């Protein structure tokens, strides 16, 4: 929104103050100023002059040779304007002056010297009209500087609309002026008005509100015999500077008052609209708005009708059929308050936001209706002596916002602000902003003004904002809080995930990536993966992104494919959120946080990659939980896993993830010649298992003895975790550890595995001889489990 300092000056005297500094303060106290534009700086040396003679230019059909009377003599000017007329008073840019940033000098135009330039409004920067010369009124004394006649000099600032979302009172110059008055401590002057009370005996306008929940107030008045067509120059300049365009006197008036008071107004041609109903319709229909566009109106949209004929979309835009034309002389003036939510919904559905609807959405103060009407009447009667009010001020005031009174004490303000704002300053600020204030001995009783209680100020914390923003946050003494010392809690899952990341990056040299929470159907298809049917996003921007991922692996596989030129060997991982269906108990999403890791290699075998990931799973379990995972053959769940090598990862017997390599078709679409393996761990399930405490045993003073035993075995069938448990149970306390020392595959395909057993006693040095019964028992136990010792 653009605001004019001249206009604000109508309501608060800011003379003697640095206006730009004030505008900057406005950012700190009220709302963000995005830009400051100084108007009129590039206009100088422009005076009132009169066309004293006109001759055709001998070399041009368009140009004329003028003699122009500046009041100090006649000068020659070459002019091309079509509306030049003998005796006309014009704005003459004299030699040495400037317009539109252009310096005026003596110039030769088609062979003739011109000692100045007659200007259009566009050239003066006060409108976009460049169709001809600006005509100055008859009585203007010759030689007068144009800036003495018109408000060409101004400072305009632009406020970010978003920062005014919660301040319906700031959508007009008057409300903004109230802020400036309070910030500067100067007096706010009320706008001049034309009282409607004397017309109460005139016939009323017939107004009927059929849907009172959507219309809080509807007031109307009729005026006839308005013959003025063009608005006063200063009014047009203000409209133009504030981003509006002058149309005709009546349309300009309603715009002007809206920009001034924030109250949207609508003028109907009284010849076509005489009665008013405010209602919704049972059935959808089409309606052409005054911009000539046909709109689809539905049952929820509030309409203004006249004798059941729709004439406007309430709060949004008038109809084409009843709009003010150049021939209109009588009008029915609407000043109303509509339900903001309803207006917002209507504009969203129609895709039509207007200056009026933007304001209604903010929940306007219904009290404004009468003030705005009286202000329009004041301007009409001032500018058009013949205009006559022909109805009473008809006012259907359906809904009054409740009065809000708040009480608090100085201690509350001190506690909330943390500083000591003097009682006088509090009273001055609140009074300046229009609050009713009773202060006594540090206790405050405050009544909220109508323009702040439509939603903005409802509780005492809101009052704190008013007091402190005007006091100025820059003026706050800042201080640390004083709170007792308390231990900091840490979230287990979060710390586990941090450890996982460290292990994956530092120990396994993996690269962390981030991907979207939704599956990418298109990319899955390229990989030969059928996208798992996850929970649906109902407003995804493309159907390809409509499913929330169940597994981390598919997106990681497509990253692997995209990066396959990056290096011969690499691995990537992500810890991210997935959703696996709905929870039975409440229908909510079963959201699971998962670690996905994928390895890629052009030089290592698939089995090596697989083993590395198995090792990685063991590493994070051992490192974080001090325990070992087990692996069990599992059925493929999604189809991108390899049916022969799909394993679930278990901790304490609970499945926490899976380890696999790609299905041959998936691998082929990634890179036939390379190897890929992947691991997924549900980090929440992982964190749910108990972390084992650090265990400590007094180290034996006696040496450890290692014994190797080799067995014939089918390697792929061995479940080492089960064997280990059996060995431990058989060997008893002397066995300190056992691990696979070597695996040997003979040329004939037969396999053998060598276990290395470490024995130690806390009491004595062990000998191989005394251990032989034990090793025999172990061999016998393993033979039971199908592993025969190799002799």
């Amino acid at each position: 929104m653009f605001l004019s300092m001249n206009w604000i000056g109508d309501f608060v005297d800011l003379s003697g103050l640095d206006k730009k500094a004030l505008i900057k303060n406005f950012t700190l106290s009220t709302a963000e100023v995005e830009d400051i534009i100084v108007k009129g700086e590039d206009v100088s040396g422009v005076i009132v002059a009169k066309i004293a003679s006109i001759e055709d230019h001998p070399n041009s059909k368009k140009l004329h040779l003028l003699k122009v009377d500046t009041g100090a003599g006649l000068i020659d000017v070459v002019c091309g304007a079509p509306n030049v007329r003998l005796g006309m008073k014009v704005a003459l840019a004299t030699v040495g002056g400037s317009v539109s940033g252009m310096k005026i000098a003596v110039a030769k135009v088609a062979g003739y010297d011109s000692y100045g330039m007659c200007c259009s409004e566009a050239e003066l920067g006060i409108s976009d009209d460049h169709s001809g010369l600006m005509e100055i009124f008859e009585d203007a004394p010759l030689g007068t500087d144009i800036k003495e006649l018109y408000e060409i000099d101004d400072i305009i600032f632009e406020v970010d609309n978003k920062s005014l979302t919660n301040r319906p009172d700031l959508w007009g110059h008057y409300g903004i002026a109230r802020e400036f008055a309070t910030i500067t401590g100067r007096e706010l002057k009320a706008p001049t008005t034309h009282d409607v009370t004397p017309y109460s005996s005139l016939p009323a306008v017939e107004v009927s509100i059929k849907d009172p929940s959507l219309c809080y107030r509807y007031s109307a008045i009729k005026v006839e015999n308005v013959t003025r067509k063009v608005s006063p120059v200063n009014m047009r300049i203000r409209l133009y500077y504030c981003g509006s365009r002058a149309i005709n006197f009546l349309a300009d008036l309603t715009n002007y008052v809206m920009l001034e008071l924030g109250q949207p107004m609508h003028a109907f041609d009284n010849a076509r609209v005489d009665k008013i109903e405010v209602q919704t319709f049972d059935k959808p229909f089409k309606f052409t708005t005054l911009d000539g566009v046909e709109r689809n109106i539905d049952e929820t949209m509030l309409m203004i009708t006249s004798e059941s004929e729709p004439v406007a979309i309430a709060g949004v835009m008038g109809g084409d059929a009843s709009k003010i034309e150049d021939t209109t002389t009588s009008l029915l003036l609407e000043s109303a308050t509509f339900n903001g939510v309803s207006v917002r919904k209507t504009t969203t559905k129609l895709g039509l936001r207007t200056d009026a609807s933007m304001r209604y959405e903010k929940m306007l103060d219904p009290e404004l209706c009468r003030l705005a009407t009286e202000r329009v009447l004041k301007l009409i009667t001032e500018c058009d002596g013949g205009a006559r009010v022909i109805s009473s001020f008809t006012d259907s005031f359906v809904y009054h916002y409740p009065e809000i009174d708040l009480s608090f004490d100085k201690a509350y303000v001190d506690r909330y602000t943390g500083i000591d704002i003097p009682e006088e300053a509090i009273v001055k600020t609140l009074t300046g902003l229009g609050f009713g204030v009773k202060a006594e001995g540090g206790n405050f009783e405050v009544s909220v003004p109508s323009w702040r209680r439509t939603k903005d100020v409802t509780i005492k914390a809101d009052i704190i904002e008013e007091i402190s923003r005007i006091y100025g946050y820059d003026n706050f003494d800042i201080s640390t809080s004083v709170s007792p010392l308390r231990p900091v809690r840490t979230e287990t899952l979060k710390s586990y995930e941090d450890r996982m990341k460290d292990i994956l990056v530092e120990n396994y040299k993996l690269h962390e990536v981030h991907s979207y929470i939704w599956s990418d159907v298109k990319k899955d298809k390229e990989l030969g993966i059928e996208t798992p049917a996850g929970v649906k996003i109902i407003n995804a921007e493309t159907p390809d992104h409509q499913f929330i991922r169940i597994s981390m692996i598919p997106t990681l596989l497509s990253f692997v494919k995209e990066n396959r030129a990056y290096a011969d060997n690499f691995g990537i991982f992500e810890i991210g959120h997935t959703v696996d269906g709905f929870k039975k108990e409440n229908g909510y999403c079963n959201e699971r946080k998962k670690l996905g890791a994928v390895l890629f290699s052009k030089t290592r075998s698939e089995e090596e990659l697989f083993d590395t990931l198995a090792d990685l799973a063991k590493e994070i379990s051992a490192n974080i939980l001090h325990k070992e995972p087990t692996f069990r053959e599992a059925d493929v769940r999604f189809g991108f896993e390899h049916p022969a090598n799909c394993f679930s990862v278990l901790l304490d017997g609970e499945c926490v993830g899976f380890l696999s390599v790609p299905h041959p078709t998936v691998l082929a679409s990634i890179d036939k010649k390379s190897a890929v393996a992947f691991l997924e761990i549900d980090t929440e399930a992982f964190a749910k298992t108990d972390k084992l405490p650090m265990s400590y045993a007094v180290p034996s003073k006696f040496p450890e003895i290692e014994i190797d035993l080799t067995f014939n075995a089918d390697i792929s069938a061995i479940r080492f975790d089960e064997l280990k448990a059996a060995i431990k149970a058989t060997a008893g306390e002397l066995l300190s550890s056992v691990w696979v020392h070597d695996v040997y595959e003979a040329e004939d395909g037969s396999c053998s595995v060598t276990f290395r057993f470490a024995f130690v006693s806390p009491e004595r040095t062990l000998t191989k001889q005394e251990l032989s019964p034990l090793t025999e028992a172990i061999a016998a136990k393993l033979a039971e489990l199908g592993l025969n010792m190799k002799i």
Partner: protein
Amino acid sequence: MKERIEALSASFAEALGAASCESELEALRIAYLGKKGHIAALMQSLRDVADKKAAGQMINGFKCEVESKLLEAGEALRRAAIEASIRSAKKYNPSLNKKRELGSYHPITLATRDVEEIFKTMGFTIEDYAEVVDDYECFEALNIPKHHPARDMQDTYYLENGQLLKTQTSAAQNAIMKKYGAPLRAIFPGRCFRNESTDACHENTFFQMEGMMIDENISISNLIYFMKTMLSEVFKRDIKVRLRPGFFPFVEPGFELDINCLICGGEGCPSCKNSGWLELCPCGMIHPNVLREGGIDTEKYTGFAFGLGLTRLAMMKYGIKDIRDFNSGDLKALSQFKSN
């Protein structure tokens, strides 16, 4: 006797001078000092000598001389051998540049950890929260009733069961208040989602970090102090902050916090649109309705909350120009973030 010793001494000196390795020295030692060596023989012949004392002293003197000279010669030989091995040692080259494999962290992880470290030192709990939330958590509990324009400001991804992808980390406020109660200091980094089209500056998926501090007597003055201290730590220099009124339904008063522009230091430049200030994070005193929804006694406790754009912070910190790089999975970009 004297003559015998002198003769032996002369031949010892000659042999010692000729010895060039430790084994020759050892042979010499055995020849002179061994059980059947020259000195032992001398001792044997003492029997026949009259002045046994003087002769014994003489033999002993010779024995000591032989021992010390052997020792000395052995030492010299070892020194020479070490010097020779040093001279002939292979020269290594540390500058040889073989390809090293290093993993990498996502820049968001690094930026988040940086900020988390700062908050840990200030006694903040680090919380984690879901990405799928419900209407209550994301709006209702944050004082954003149905039909409030604030819901229009954010385009929300809705799921088929009525839940939604969280549009702001504030969605965790309510749950965290309920989990810990007051007093409370917590930060909660998290991923947020807004249904908008993407370009170099806009993403539908991005990270924020929310923080809350609730206690008795927490004031606006505390908030400003805290934000200034925290941001000075984050940017590793003294930061000027400025508060402007800002409207967010879940705070009252609400602020937009600006810091002096990092590029120009406040002079005014294109990146701060010549204002000298950068809008950095929304913050404010937690709205009493929000505290109440979180089960916190609003008469006893006040608090502040703030939001920090982690994605934006990472962009500023690492000079990342295109926000889409974060979710690209492109290792050429991402593998550069080697370690903490």
